[in-house]
């Protein structure tokens, strides 16, 4: 009986189910970073001159920066010369439809549980897939283009819609924003571009799957979503990576722009490889995500379920520039074994009568460290700004940690900012109660954790919520002895 006593303390092996490597012919450039590498990337992507200049400017700026150290995470020094900055699956020929995509690649997606063919046929989800650096196939493009929605890879957008890219890229996250944003601006390889014209409600969920395949390849994707006046879009992003002993760097930039009365809902299920149970390998996920509610009465909502990555450094934010705008952030961050997460949000209230809501749920198991870091700022002109923040932490076992770093800056007297935080442990009492009803410990923990995360899960679109629930269950496997 005694052996089960510390069942909760034994966070053991958690098999990463997406740890397969796809054997596809890949076009890889040598490791390292310098101006020539950037020129090479730009050349391979057949980019216009202005894009190359933009990249080089970002690179020059990046060289003047030092890596930030303020986050509550620890990792060995990253050698930026030891990373491959461009890796693309070699296409046999120009692809016109999904049917022409490399079957090996398609089967990879099937292993991931996102059969494109299936998606196309059954779910009505438009998927843009980014593998390593190049967007492979975009489904539903035609149907979307009929209503004026542009949904394509960012590379394609640079070719086809340069005026839009030029106008908006870097307008929310400038290349000078931070270390990783500058790096991304210099070397980004692909990502998604969405443009929803005025008055259009995008009839389907737009979805991107990211996957890192090549060894030592960093993935630097860049996503830009523009929702014009009175439009609506729901965007889903899912991420996986194969198991590698070495750490892989992922530094993405996501920019959202919501014009007057527009609404953008951005949901992420992030399941990058978290490393093994000793903390070897895994993805370093340093992401800059920011949205701006530019027009009055616009709304941006971030929902994220984060179970992967060895290190997560990520603060999806909303700048509430227009009056009466709304920003939301719903997050579940699960860390196990030796994972470290420093994640949260920033809500910057600039306009009048702006509202924001933050619900952050952190779950820590094993030896992991899970930090919530959030900033709520109400500027001088943000009359009647309202914020409500709730940060809850759940601990599984006693070798993990949960931390909360809330920052509040209020410069307007009429602003109301509320913050609530709780920390709890899955009690032996809860576990025993479940077991006495015939529910085994693993199932019981899943039940308790899903209950804890429910408020956030409810924000996800239906199919995604089910996937996120399964993902949580997979990530938790072995966190109970």
């Amino acid at each position, binding site marked *: 009986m005694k052996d089960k006593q510390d069942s909760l303390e034994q966070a053991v092996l958690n098999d990463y189910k997406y740890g397969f490597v796809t054997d596809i012919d890949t076009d890889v450039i040598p490791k390292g970073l310098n101006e020539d590498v950037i020129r090479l990337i730009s050349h391979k992507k057949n980019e216009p001159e202005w894009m190359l200049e933009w990249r080089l400017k970002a690179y020059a700026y990046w060289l003047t920066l030092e890596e930030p150290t303020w986050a509550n995470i620890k990792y060995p020094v990253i050698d930026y010369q030891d990373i491959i900055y461009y890796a693309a699956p070699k296409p046999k020929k120009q692809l016109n439809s999904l049917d022409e995509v490399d079957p090996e690649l398609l089967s990879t997606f099937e292993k991931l549980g996102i059969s494109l063919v299936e998606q196309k046929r059954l779910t009505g989800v438009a998927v843009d897939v980014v593998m390593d650096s190049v967007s492979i196939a975009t489904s539903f493009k035609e149907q979307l283009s009929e209503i004026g929605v542009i949904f394509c890879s960012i590379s394609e957008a640079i070719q086809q819609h340069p005026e839009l890219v030029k106008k908006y890229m870097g307008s929310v996250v400038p290349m000078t924003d931070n270390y990783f944003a500058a790096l991304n601006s210099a070397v980004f390889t692909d990502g998604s571009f969405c443009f929803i014209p005025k008055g259009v409600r995008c009839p389907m969920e737009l979805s991107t799957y990211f996957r890192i395949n090549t060894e030592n390849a960093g993935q630097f994707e860049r996503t830009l979503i523009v929702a014009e006046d009175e439009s609506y879009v729901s965007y889903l992003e899912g991420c996986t990576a194969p198991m590698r002993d070495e750490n892989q760097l992922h530094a993405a930039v996501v920019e959202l722009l919501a014009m007057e009365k527009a609404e953008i809902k951005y949901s992420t299920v992030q399941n990058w490889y978290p490393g093994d149970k000793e903390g070897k390998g895994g993805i370093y996920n340093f992401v800059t995500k920011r949205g701006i509610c530019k027009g009055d009465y616009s709304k941006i909502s971030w929902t994220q379920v984060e179970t992967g990555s060895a290190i997560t450094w990520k603060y999806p934010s909303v700048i509430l520039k227009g009056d009466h705008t709304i920003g939301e952030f719903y997050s579940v961050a699960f860390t196990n074994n030796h994972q470290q997460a420093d994640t949260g949000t920033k809500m910057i209230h600039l306009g009048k009568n702006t509202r924001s809501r933050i619900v952050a749920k952190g779950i820590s198991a094993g030896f992991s460290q899970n930090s919530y870091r959030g900033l709520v700022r109400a500027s001088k002109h943000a009359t009647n700004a309202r914020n409500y923040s709730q940060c809850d932490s759940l601990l599984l076992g006693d070798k993990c940690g949960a931390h909360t770093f809330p920052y509040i800056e209020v410069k307007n007297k009429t602003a109301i900012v509320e913050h609530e935080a709780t920390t709890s442990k899955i009690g*032996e009492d809860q576990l*025993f109660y*479940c077991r*006495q009803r015939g529910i085994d410990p693993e*199932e019981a923990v899943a*039940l308790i954790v899903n209950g804890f995360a429910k408020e956030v899960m409810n924000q996800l679109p239906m199919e995604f919520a089910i996937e996120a629930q399964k993902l949580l269950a997979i990530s938790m496997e072995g966190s109970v002895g």
Partner: protein
Amino acid sequence: MYMLSIKNIHANVEGKEILKGINLEIKPGEVHAIMGPNGSGKSTLASVLAGREEYEVTEGEVSFLNKNLLELSPEDRAREGLFLAFQYPVEIPGVSTTNFIKAAVNEKRKYHGLEPLDSVSFLKIMKEKMALVEIDQSLLSRSINEGFSGGEKKRNEIFQMAMLEPKLAILDETDSGLDIDALRIVANGINKLHNPERAVLVITHYQRLLEYIQPDFVHVLYNGRIVKSGTKELALELEEKGYDFITDEVDLTAE
């Protein structure tokens, strides 16, 4: 044939011996009551039978439906048909009572090689049992036990018992903290669920629950041992004279 047979059970909590040789045999259909003063080991006995891990059994045997109970995990004991109505039912935020019970019912079915219940059949059974224990639908859609009143928590325990149809139900101080109306409803629920195949072990400090639930046998637990057994008249005698009339006697012989 006995359903439950406890032989000379000794159990420790944090190194301290609480149960010092319990013997008890229960046949299907019987209702047994275990009474005793605070600290006599009543709840420890319930926890040991349910398999709570902080309780270490150092000696003795327990057989339940011809299986060695002590070798089974808590969840397998439950699936074999042992149900414990908790003295302090536990809150699980965000988990609806309905989903919790559904998970429990289906885990048990799986163990017995049955298909999980579909939602329609599950709801049908739930409706029947709700009437039986007079529980409100709205309670079942709320997070389990969260913000429930004392009476609601106990009624919810009896409702779970109705849904899980155990062979042996152990009620650990189910009467504590209940007003007289709640007590009556809970007792009625238990009586309706009692049948010739199902045994009930009622653990209580007070005689008042036994006014509603008629025990076949009453045992007095004191200082980790059953010091006196009898019929329901024993409960009445205890009510009248207090525990002292037995415990003094025991303490005297011990000296």
